[in-house]
């Protein structure tokens, strides 16, 4: 096992009070796998990834409890100096906004060489050669010329490729990609996802892919975690989750994926919006939007149930482990 997150809680201390943006989550990432995290906007995906990187904006945010074990070493206990040695080297990150994630006033070459030389005691020449090699690997043509160009001279897709080259430059064990294609055109999105998949095979870096697009998850992930309002509500292998979604929220998400084959007039969408983390103190956080909610759901916190060996979900419908959401409804109606 590469990474194990145990009982992680990350809280923002704001004027409106404490916001537990990530509320006691547990998950594991295995060597070389692609693990997806899905969930609607505001459910805590980015905060989870920033917590792993030790980059939660502080103030106002802070990891308030839990452990993040990288090959057994607890990252939450490391000093800033020790953490710096891990960032970019063992764990690298690709961000959502390729347009603003590169420094506008330094050349692409300067920023790539910087990333390489932080963790390798190489001279500039050697680092530059490695940078060019990485750019070619991520499918950037004219790599030598790009070294001298500024970010504003590149398209969004090219910049994201540069970010990927940068993330992979020191051969990390884990790459966290936080919605790497959300800001890009649909055709470019597919190319970048394909690239991530190829590079995952080539470098054998594990990828933690954050997205709100279940279609992408279906295509390239092996396992998936569904987050809702700061909590993990379901975790399963990808095949399993599409076949047997066990949390009503997951089911809603799957229903709202546009399907090219069926020409549906209107797309399903889950009514309502994600409640702000911490705003629901008792009961299931999905209850206000859940079509299966009953009284108990509003008064008790549902625990996590095992659906099968590596499939878990947080919903009372799974009590006693009898069947799935669909079956339950059939029973009740």
């Amino acid at each position, binding site marked *: 096992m590469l990474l194990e997150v145990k009982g992680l809680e990350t809280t923002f201390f704001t004027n409106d009070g404490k916001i537990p943006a990530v509320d006691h989550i547990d998950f594991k990432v295995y060597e070389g796998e692609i693990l997806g995290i899905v969930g609607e906007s505001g459910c805590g995906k980015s905060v989870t990834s920033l917590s792993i990187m030790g980059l939660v904006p502080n103030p106002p945010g802070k990891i308030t409890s839990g452990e993040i074990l990288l090959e057994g070493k607890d990252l939450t206990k490391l000093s800033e100096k020790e953490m710096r040695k891990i960032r970019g*080297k063992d764990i690298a990150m690709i961000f959502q906004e390729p347009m*603003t994630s590169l420094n506008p006033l330094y050349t692409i070459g300067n920023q790539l060489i910087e990333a390489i030389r932080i963790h390798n005691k190489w001279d500039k020449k050697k680092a530059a050669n490695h940078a060019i090699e990485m750019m070619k690997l991520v499918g950037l043509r004219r790599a030598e010329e790009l070294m001298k160009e500024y970010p504003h001279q590149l398209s969004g897709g090219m910049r994201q490729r540069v970010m990927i080259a940068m993330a992979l430059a020191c051969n990390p064990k884990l790459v966290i990609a936080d919605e790497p294609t959300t800001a890009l055109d649909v055709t470019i999105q597919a190319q970048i996802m394909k690239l991530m998949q190829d590079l995952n095979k080539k470098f054998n870096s594990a990828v933690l892919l954050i997205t709100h697009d279940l279609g992408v998850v279906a295509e390239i992930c092996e396992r998936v975690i569904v987050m809702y309002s700061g909590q993990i509500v379901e975790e399963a292998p990808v095949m399993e989750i599409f076949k047997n979604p066990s949390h009503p929220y997951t089911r809603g998400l799957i229903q709202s994926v546009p399907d090219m084959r069926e020409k549906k007039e209107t797309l399903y969408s889950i009514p309502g919006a994600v409640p702000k983390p911490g705003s629901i103190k008792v009961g299931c956080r999905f209850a206000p939007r859940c079509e299966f909610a009953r009284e108990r759901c509003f008064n008790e916190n549902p625990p996590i149930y095992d659906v099968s060996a590596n499939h878990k979900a947080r919903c009372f419908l799974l009590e006693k482990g009898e069947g799935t959401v669909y079956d339950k409804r059939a029973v009740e109606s």
Partner: protein
Amino acid sequence: MLHYIGRRFLQLIPVLLGMTFIVFLIIRAIPGDPAQMILGQQATKESVEALRENLGLNNPWYIQYFDYLKGLLTGDLGVSIRTNQPISTEIWPYLAATFELAFFAMFIAVVIGMNAGIISAWFQNTWFDYLAMVIALIGVSVPVFWLGLLEQWLFSINLGWFPTSGREEVRDPIMAITHFYLIDTLIQGRYDQFGTVVKHLILPGMALATIPMAIIARMTRSSMLEVMRSDYIRTARAKGQKMFIVVYKHALKNAIIPILTVIGLQTGLLLGGAILTETIFSWPGIGRYIYEAIGFRDYPVIQSGILVVAFLFVIINFIVDILYSFIDKRIKYN
């Protein structure tokens, strides 16, 4: 790049022309006849009239303005009534004294002000941040005149650490070459004199530096805070870069443009502030030169002195503008 500088330079011309015209008008608007002033109250009507003719004061105003411009273009700033010397040669030692004081003050203001602002932004909402910003708040509102006198009273009269006034020891005058005494003493290898020059610079320099330092600190802080929230700062940290380099390399370069603007503007204003400071510390600079000329109603000196200061103001801002385009390669495209 050259194209951009050229275009900016062309834009400068109307500004400079307008300035000469305004200064020309203001001086003409002062009541009293310059010829009468030059010759004194006892002068005969005929001699005054003759001088008026001689000075071209009887010509229509646009001819006068044109002649005046022609003079400026050939580097002729007129002749001082008081000393009867060409202003263009007489003015240099004064200008050099002001430049030396202004550069020294600006150096202090930039080094201390920028670092205070950077560190405040880096350690936002810590005791350092609060302390620095309280000092800066007091700094922007403190009257320079009062501060200068206070400094004199405390550091020179009471503690005796620094001389009260002037640029040099009367007992040991400095041999002027460039009239920049810091340079002159070094050229001559007079390191002892160099020390006294620095000592003389410190009190007026600090008085003059206070306001720009406070303004630079505040501007640096707010500009840095804005930049520190950027995605590329997070990227730099995600690479594993040291916070010091993230701040001084990635953030500062992006935050620098508004800071440079303020530095440019403050350098211009500082030339104005220098006039006050020079009076308190008997600093023989351009401020004193104009101040004394006013006492003597030496119109040509007043006119040229003001014009030179105004020109410097514009030129400094021009240089700042050019600097931007060197820092931010995107600017010339816009």
